[in-house]
């Protein structure tokens, strides 16, 4: 113990570490009414870290070459000790991370936390959701299975509906007329280098915004009608008399992280192929399209929208408009008050929107 103490004192004299701990941990006060939904951000940080670490481990044996990719993934799954564990943690983890992103988004939506002064938190967060879906899409191609190949063919094809430049754009994205070895090269670079860096940077911005505005207090029925920030000068939301982040809320964060891990390992151990279809066990064959190619569950709604509109460009426009609306929500919904039960119009639109998303996904799954 004295050795640890000495080391601590050595660092303390030089860096004043206790002041940082006081400011960021024990003296960082959160509202007394804070609830467990606020731990989802930490769960996402954990989930992202897990994806990065398992991804780096996969890179050791994965070969990004159309002739060797499928084989290298089979070797990881069947021959390398615990390769199956690392690969499944990565593949199942991507699905769970997207699910957690939706939960985080819905929680800040219903608590009205996107309103002034947290518009930038929302915009950066929504961008993160889309980038994480993008990193999943590019990762989907890498095992070079029938599923990878044809799901990527369908996904990249819809870009072609954009007028004038569409056709060229598809070719640009694929690196050729059809999905093939050049596509693997591009998707690999985007999946392992470009998007991880962009996402990490954007998470940094997301947390910076949080630090500057201070965390919100959950809305309650008894809040004054004007809980949305008024005035035009900078102000940090501090919560005097609140609970310290460390150890109080940190424990809640750890509880939620444990639940996340339990779900992840539950799927990995008891239903490892939950997110796989038979086509993901067959190597890609560019001359044979399997029947019923479906995207991952979180793209099913987009997939179904493209199918129900008679022309692809209308489907794309509807999606683009919907996404833009969600991204700019804090600038559209600027009304006072954050307590959801006192905002009937908001509740109808949000619940209706979520119900529609779920219905479209189920429809897409069954069709």
């Amino acid at each position, binding site marked *: 113990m004295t050795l640890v103490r000495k080391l601590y004192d050595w660092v303390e004299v030089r860096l004043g570490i206790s002041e940082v701990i006081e400011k960021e941990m024990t003296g960082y006060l959160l509202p007394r009414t804070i609830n467990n939904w606020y731990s989802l951000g930490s769960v996402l940080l954990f989930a992202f870290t897990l994806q990065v670490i398992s991804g780096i*481990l996969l890179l*050791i044996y994965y070969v990004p070459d159309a002739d060797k990719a499928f084989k290298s993934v089979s070797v990881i799954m069947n*021959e*390398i*000790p*615990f*390769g199956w*564990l*690392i690969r499944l943690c990565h593949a199942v983890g991507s699905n769970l991370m997207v699910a957690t992103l939706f939960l985080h988004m819905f929680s800040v939506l219903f608590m009205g936390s996107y309103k002034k002064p947290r518009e930038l938190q929302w915009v950066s967060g929504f961008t993160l959701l889309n980038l994480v879906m993008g990193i999943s899409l590019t990762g989907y191609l890498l095992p070079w299975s029938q599923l990878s190949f044809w799901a990527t063919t369908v996904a990249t094809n819809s870009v072609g509906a954009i007028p004038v430049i569409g056709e060229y754009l598809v070719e640009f994205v694929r690196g050729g007329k059809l999905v093939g070895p050049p596509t693997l090269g591009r998707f690999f670079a985007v999946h392992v280098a470009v998007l991880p860096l962009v996402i990490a940077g954007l998470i940094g911005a997301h947390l910076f915004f949080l630090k500057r505005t201070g965390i919100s207090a959950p809305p309650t029925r008894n809040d004054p009608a004007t809980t949305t920030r008024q005035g035009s000068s900078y102000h940090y939301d501090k919560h005097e008399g609140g609970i310290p982040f460390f150890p109080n809320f940190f424990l809640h964060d750890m509880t939620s992280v444990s639940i996340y891990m339990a779900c992840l390992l539950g799927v990995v151990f008891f239903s490892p192929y939950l997110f796989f279809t038979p086509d993901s066990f067959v190597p890609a064959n560019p001359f044979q399209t399997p029947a019923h190619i479906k995207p991952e569950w979180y793209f099913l709604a987009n997939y179904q929208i493209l199918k129900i509109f008679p022309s692809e460009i209308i489907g794309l426009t509807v999606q683009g408009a919907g996404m833009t609306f969600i991204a700019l929500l804090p600038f559209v919904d600027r009304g006072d008050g954050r307590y959801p039960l006192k905002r009937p119009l908001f509740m109808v639109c949000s619940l209706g929107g979520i119900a529609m998303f779920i219905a479209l996904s189920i429809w897409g799954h069954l069709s």
Partner: protein
Amino acid sequence: MEQDGRRLFLMTCIGGVAAVTAGAVAYPVISYLAPRKGKDNSASVTIPEKELPPDGAKFFQYHGKAAVIVRKKDGSVTALSAVCTHLGCIVQWEAKKGEFICPCHGGQFSAEGKVLGGPPPKPLEQLKATVANGVITIG
């Protein structure tokens, strides 16, 4: 005092859980990273005698490392490890001089592997070689 006992108990529990978790993560990760056992390469190597030119040398893999056979002036065959004992570069055969030279730092070895000059501290490792019916067997 009672406070201290409780604190110690809880800290021990947390430490224990942390240690078990660290172990449960480290074990699969280290197994995953551990070098894989290749094909069984402990077997002896056979080379047809005619592949070894007179006063020439032939390099090959032996137990996963570089090795060499040379035919000496008297016609007999020696097998040596080709790994220089200085810093592990692979020695080259100089047919004209009948010597090995290490290209990295100029170590010189005789055809029997003895150090003739330069930094190597030890002779090249000797391997067992037998010639029978026109086949050289090493190991």
